[in-house]
């Protein structure tokens, strides 16, 4: 009996293509303990590296005595900067055009800086040897505050830059000054402020925080002295760029360097950079001719690998009396730590901070960012966000709230008044960004209706008037726009390599497929979602499409996964590679069906002859023919590679609303409700999108309510373990409500914009807006994060709030 003919819908469903909440392909290994993370890798003869670190934040190294460590059985080597000097590897270039010490060269610049390495038979012996290395320091004055760092008589931190008045991003006017970067039109903005009837200003500090993925950084370096080949497994969000850097530093030809990012236990920006630990493990393997493993512990991870934020911002808005914004000015002092190791596109030392005009039609704007050296660890990465976009969104959303308060306007009303309207897209901002698409008014109304905003305001009013109410109620509202998917290579590069991304697809003779990508998943589910794009484009079931990433010897060159660029850039590369295959498949189908290409129509998984439903060839038929009987003049096989250089960024947006109840007695905040509407354009897998949003909101909750890296005057980091650094548990974490609208990107092949970072970027100012709103009737316009119970309790006392 013939199998029943499947309906169009059945055929479509079987593909599990775009829009399907397909369960994740990667889960089978993770739920059985069969993931392969960096520290799981074990090679024959492998040695372990550990690092001797500085206890002081600023000091001169007087003496290093390796002997007691070398005397421990099982210790193979102890290396210091002096050992790396002949190889010229004691300093390395950073992504931001500066240099960073690999091992401290005569001076240490921050607490826990790398001073020496030990290599031993196992991690226990290596840890013993670290304790045994004797280092004498002469302590120097420490500078923690970036404003003090810029005082004329501030201690000189970077003696290696003495006399250097030109940095990678223009002139340096002080020994601790790195760069001053500006965007927008200062005179136009000044003019708008001079004429405006209303102006508001607010100073705010976005604290230094750490991305803190559960897996710390590490690598296994294995140099084969016979073949001259270097293979390194590494916790890297950008393995191809690392290969280029390693080749440049080591002199090993890039063709003999293989970087493999295996399974990664979360990245969130922490695993973009090249750290001294990686370089030292590679050098050790080359020197000793044996594999060397380095695994950071948590204290090392929080203390030394890339932090995020630490922006001291002054925002100013000029407006009419009825709340129409006329101008924006922002001045930032950015604490970059001891070396400028920010991970930004080369031409943007403050990343894409100039997205700080937000979702609003602001005619004039100017911003300036001044980078400063201090005695803290280097970094400045995008912690679950596009480059400095979190800081920018925080700034503008706070400022709009401050203006609303000054004018006694409702937060929603002032936003509606200033939104870029739907018909204004594509919209060019005063900073020059071309926003691709958006419909902010519709999205805002949807959220206000869903939560019954009017009723919430009425309840708040009633509670404010009730002296016996034990809580302060706050309503936070944020209407943010992100800029992601870096980016067009004419303006975006990393170390001179354009920020394109890539995909190679091969269709096998029996109709299954493999796709290899320049990105690398760290939990985003690429192995699931990328296959869905191909399934929809080519009519091959997702189930038989393998997705591989992270091995530089097999995958095409790509810039990696960070800044929400995987879907906007690599996702587009997939669609474009698939379309090349589709075009070839059509030629083969025409040949097999003996008709002209123009007579064929595509339908889900097959080409059919127009007007003759019975005559068709499925993609599986075509794949077989491609290896068996391709038309004359057409080369056999069915595969394609595409390098996608995006014409523009994408601009996902969202409307978030939060209701908080603050205990008047304890300062404890309880998140009663958090409603998150996201518009990420075309949705590939709604289940995964929701999961990404839950995670991003939780990370945003952590930043707003508890995360910070406080330093004392001596430069000691007060809290570098998970006993002190706040990662919320299931108990504190609120329940999230999600919603969406769909406004596709017009320039993206499938209309997708990227989503994983929006919830982090958007939620932080929302929590902040809610907490400040709880105090707004007392005249409070701003409170710096984090909103720990103690800090909120102090504010309650300061404002004289009685229980």
């Amino acid at each position, binding site marked *: 009996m013939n199998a029943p003919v499947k309906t169009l819908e059945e055929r479509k469903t079987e593909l599990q293509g775009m829009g399907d909440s397909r369960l994740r392909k990667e889960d089978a290994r993770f739920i059985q303990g069969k993931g392969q993370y960096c520290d799981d890798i074990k090679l024959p003869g492998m040695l372990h590296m550990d690092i001797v670190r500085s206890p002081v934040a600023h000091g001169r190294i007087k003496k290093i005595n390796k002997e007691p460590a070398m005397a421990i059985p099982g210790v193979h080597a102890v290396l210091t900067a002096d050992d790396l000097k002949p190889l010229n590897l004691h300093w390395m270039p950073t992504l931001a055009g500066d240099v960073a010490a690999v091992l401290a060269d005569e001076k240490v610049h921050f607490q826990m800086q790398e001073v020496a390495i030990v290599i031993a038979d196992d991690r226990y012996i290596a840890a013993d040897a670290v304790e045994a290395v004797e280092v004498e320091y002469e302590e120097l004055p420490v500078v923690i505050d970036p404003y003090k760092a810029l005082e004329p008589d501030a201690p000189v931190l970077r003696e290696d830059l003495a006399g250097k008045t030109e940095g990678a991003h223009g002139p340096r006017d002080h020994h601790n000054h790195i760069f001053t970067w500006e965007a927008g039109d200062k005179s136009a903005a000044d003019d708008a402020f001079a004429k405006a009837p209303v102006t508001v200003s607010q100073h705010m500090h976005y604290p230094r925080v750490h991305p803190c993925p559960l897996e710390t950084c590490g690598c296994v370096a294995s140099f084969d002295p016979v073949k001259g080949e270097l293979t390194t497994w590494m916790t890297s969000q950008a393995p191809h760029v690392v290969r280029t850097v390693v080749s440049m530093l080591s002199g090993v030809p890039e063709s003999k360097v293989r970087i493999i990012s295996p399974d990664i236990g979360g990245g*969130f920006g922490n695993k973009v950079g090249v750290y001294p630990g990686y370089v030292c493990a590679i050098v050790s393997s080359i020197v000793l001719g044996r594999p060397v493993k380095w695994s950071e512990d948590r204290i090392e991870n929080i203390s030394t690998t890339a932090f995020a934020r630490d922006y001291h911002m002054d925002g100013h808005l000029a407006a009419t009396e009825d709340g129409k914004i006329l101008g924006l000015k922002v001045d930032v002092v950015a604490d970059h730590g001891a070396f400028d190791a920010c991970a930004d596109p080369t031409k943007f030392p403050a990343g894409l901070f100039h997205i700080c005009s937000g979702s609003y039609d602001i005619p004039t704007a100017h911003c300036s960012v001044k980078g400063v050296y201090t005695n803290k660890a280097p970094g400045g990465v995008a912690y679950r966000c596009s480059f400095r976009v979190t800081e920018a969104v925080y700034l503008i959303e706070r400022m709009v709230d401050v203006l609303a308060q000054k004018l006694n306007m409702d937060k929603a009303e002032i936003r509606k008044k200033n939104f870029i309207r739907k018909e204004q897209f594509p919209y060019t901002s005063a900073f020059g960004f071309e926003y691709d698409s958006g419909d902010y008014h519709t999205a805002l109304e949807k959220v206000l209706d869903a939560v019954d905003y009017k009723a919430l305001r009425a309840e708040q009013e009633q509670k404010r008037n009730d002296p016996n109410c034990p809580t302060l109620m706050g309503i936070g509202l944020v209407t943010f726009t992100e800029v992601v998917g870096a980016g067009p290579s004419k303006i975006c590069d990393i170390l001179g390599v354009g920020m394109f991304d890539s995909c190679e697809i091969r269709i096998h003779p029996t109709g299954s497929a493999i796709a290899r990508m320049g990105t690398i998943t760290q939990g985003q589910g690429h192995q699931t979602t990328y296959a869905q794009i191909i399934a929809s484009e080519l009519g091959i079931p997702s189930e038989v499409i393998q997705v591989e990433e992270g091995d530089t010897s097999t995958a095409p060159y790509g810039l990696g996964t960070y800044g929400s660029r995987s879907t906007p850039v690599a996702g587009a590369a997939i669609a474009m590679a698939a379309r090349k295959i589709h075009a070839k498949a059509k030629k083969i189908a025409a040949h097999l069906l003996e008709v002209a290409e123009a007579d064929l129509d595509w339908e889900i998984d097959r080409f059919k002859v127009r007007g003759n439903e019975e005559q068709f060839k499925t993609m599986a038929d075509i794949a077989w023919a491609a290896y068996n009987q391709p038309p004359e003049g057409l080369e056999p096989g069915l595969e394609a590679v595409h390098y996608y250089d995006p014409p523009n960024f994408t601009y996902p947006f969202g409307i978030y609303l939060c209701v908080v109840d603050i205990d008047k007695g304890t300062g404890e905040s309880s998140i009663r409700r958090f409603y998150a509407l996201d518009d990420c354009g075309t949705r590939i897998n709604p289940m995964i999108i929701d999961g990404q949003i839950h995670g991003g909101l939780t990370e945003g909750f952590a930043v707003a309510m508890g995360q910070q890296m406080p330093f004392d005057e001596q430069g000691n980091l007060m809290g570098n373990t998970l006993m002190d650094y706040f990662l919320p548990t299931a108990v504190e974490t609120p329940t999230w409500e999600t919603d969406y609208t769909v406004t596709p990107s017009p320039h993206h092949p499938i209309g997708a914009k990227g989503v994983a970072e929006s919830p982090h970027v958007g939620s932080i100012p929302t929590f902040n807006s809610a907490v400040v709103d709880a105090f707004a009737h007392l005249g409070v316009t701003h409170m710096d994060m984090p909103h720990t119970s103690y800090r909120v309790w102090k504010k309650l006392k300061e404002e004289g709030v009685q229980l």
Partner: protein
Amino acid sequence: MAKQIVKMNLNGQEIEQLVDSRTLLVHFLREQMNLTGAHIGCETSQCGVCTVDIDGESVKACTHLAVQCDGCEVKTVEGLAEGGVLHAVQEAFYEEHGLQCGYCTPGMLMTSYRLLQDNPNPTEDEIRIGLSGNLCRCTGYQNIVKAVKSAAVKLQQKESATA
């Protein structure tokens, strides 16, 4: 370094191994027994990615010595599935999208497994409190909580089917 003989039942198998007295259980499992499911995330008992089950209790293997397990029954994530059939908590985490990067997953599964042994029908609050020794940076816990609820139902159905 003094070595000692340690005997234990590991995932149903009786084993006898020579270990350094200072070796942590998590390193013993990962490096000596090649069971890399239990991970290391904090070394201070905060994150729970190293959670295993010892004699019917959830234990963080990063702050437990291997020699303390002499004579114990130890179960790791690798021992959850039986006869090639996934345990209900494994199935539920997969179905409810209770994992993303997968790093916390083995610990979450072992804690959930123990939680449901001790309390077969937990409320949402009991689940959240029960999981509070395990951190996750990716999921925001919402789907993990759903997964534990779903696993509870699966286990009860299984029980009533065999009763």
